[in-house]
């Protein structure tokens, strides 16, 4: 078993999204990607964003990360206005975004090397601990292209967790994986979340996945992107994605989602 006490997390963050709007201007027209979106995310909460394609989930995540600037409104992390990316809010992208010029270990060390307060041994220790956490300690010196898609996402998870961010933002991290690998990764994520208590925002297309992982599922609708409905998922953890209780929650979310798709088309 892995000794999680060494990896005990520092405090996670409270996130406030306050009246955020975003427009994208292209040569042909202007897309209203987000319209007055407000969210309160508690410390250590696991929130899932679902919604049809193009409803602004990735845009919202980028704005929370500080990678994109909102046109209106603001984002607060721990009562501080988010003005740019910072290493307290790490992002895990749909493709792994691992650096091909570094080994697996080098990738996990990348964020750690930017923390001046750590010694070299500390960094190596933390990196190895995190590779162990995702079950890839044997692949520390492998090259990125030698890993499978699921392994890459696990390395990306280790890389995001190693610098001990307060917030983890995940944009469809499991979209490219097969069902079995995905279920494994659900297990990993739940286990890590239980022990590390990060604030997590996860974007997904998969309603079941959202109900399996989230404390709360936030449903968004497109044109313009808005928050339409929120579902609290009060199921005991660890959750099994195939359980019946979970399925009933998922059904509720799905029917709401379909409702917005239909009404969206009529508008």
């Amino acid at each position, binding site marked *: 078993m892995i000794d999680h006490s060494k990896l005990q997390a520092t405090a996670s963050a409270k996130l406030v999204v306050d009246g955020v709007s975003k427009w994208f201007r292209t040569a042909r027209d202007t897309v209203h990607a987000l319209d007055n979106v407000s969210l309160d995310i508690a410390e250590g909460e696991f929130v899932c964003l679902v919604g049809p394609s193009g409803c602004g989930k990735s845009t919202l995540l980028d704005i929370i*990360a*500080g*990678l994109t600037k909102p046109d209106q409104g603001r984002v607060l992390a721990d009562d501080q206005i988010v003005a*740019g*990316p*910072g*290493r307290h*809010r*790490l*992002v895990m*992208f749909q*493709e792994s*975004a691992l*650096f*091909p*010029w*570094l*080994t697996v270990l080098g990738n996990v060390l*990348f*964020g750690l090397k*930017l*923390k001046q307060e750590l010694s070299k041994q500390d960094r190596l220790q933390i990196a190895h601990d995190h590779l162990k956490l995702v079950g890839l300690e044997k692949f520390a010196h492998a*090259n*990125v*292209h*030698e890993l499978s898609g699921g392994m890459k996402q696990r390395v990306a998870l280790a*890389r995001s967790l190693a*610098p001990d961010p307060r917030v983890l933002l995940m944009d469809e991290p499991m979209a490219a994986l097969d069902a079995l690998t995905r279920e494994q990764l659900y297990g990993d994520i739940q286990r890590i979340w239980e022990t590390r208590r990060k604030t997590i925002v996860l974007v997904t297309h998969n309603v079941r996945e959202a109900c399996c992982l989230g404390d709360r599922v936030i449903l968004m609708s497109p044109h313009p992107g808005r928050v339409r409905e929120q579902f609290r998922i009060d199921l005991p953890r660890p959750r099994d994605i195939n359980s019946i209780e979970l399925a009933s929650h998922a059904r509720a979310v799905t029917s709401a989602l379909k409702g917005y798709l239909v009404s969206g088309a009529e508008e």
Partner: protein
Amino acid sequence: MSRAIHGTLFFLGLLAVWQLAVMSGRWSPVLLPGPYSVGEYLWGAATDGTLSEACIVTMRRLLIGYGIGLLLGLPLGMLTSTSQFFQDTLGSLALGMQTLPSVCWIPLALLWFGQTETAMLFVVVMGTLWSVLIATDTGARSISPIYARAARTMGSEGLHQWTRVIIPASLPYLISGMKQGWAFAWRSLMAAEIYVTILTGFGLGHLLHYGRELSAMDQVIGIMLVIVVIGLAADKLLFSPWERFLHRRWGTGLLQG
């Protein structure tokens, strides 16, 4: 091992064809000397020191000119890749200049600098600079923005982002740009040495030129062989290690595996 054998057999075969062509007697030995007389010339030139001296003179010019071209081309390419203004100005200039064969710089270099080392270097730098600049620009442009985004969320910015993310990410393009730059430098230096006679140093190009003046075909062919061998050796020594590194890390070029 078998690769070495294949290579050796192939080149021995070429030598044999050459020798047979000479022995057939269809061409005058003045125009087509045999491998033996070329070897004899090379041996003589090697033992009396002309060959090594010419090689040193040529390599010095090449390395200095290539070095200057790289030192200018790499940062300028980075500049054009990040700024629309420099792309529209310097980038367009580079595109135009790259289409100009480097021999075309020789008249200008002669008028500006006279028959000097500077003229020589100028031609080599002009041959290298633009292609390195364009390759670097293309490289930095084609890297996936997701790398920079991931790095920024981990706290990387400014110089750190350049040295740890953008340059390593564009390494495959940089290497091929440097390789292309090398080829251009080599070609332009040979052109310059053949056309420009200067007294500060006799390079391989000059030996080639005087070979023609003296109708010494064995010298012409011998020096051409030396030029080919140097080009091959440079490729193996300068670029192969990098390409192997790329192959291992990126997993590219697996078809040649």
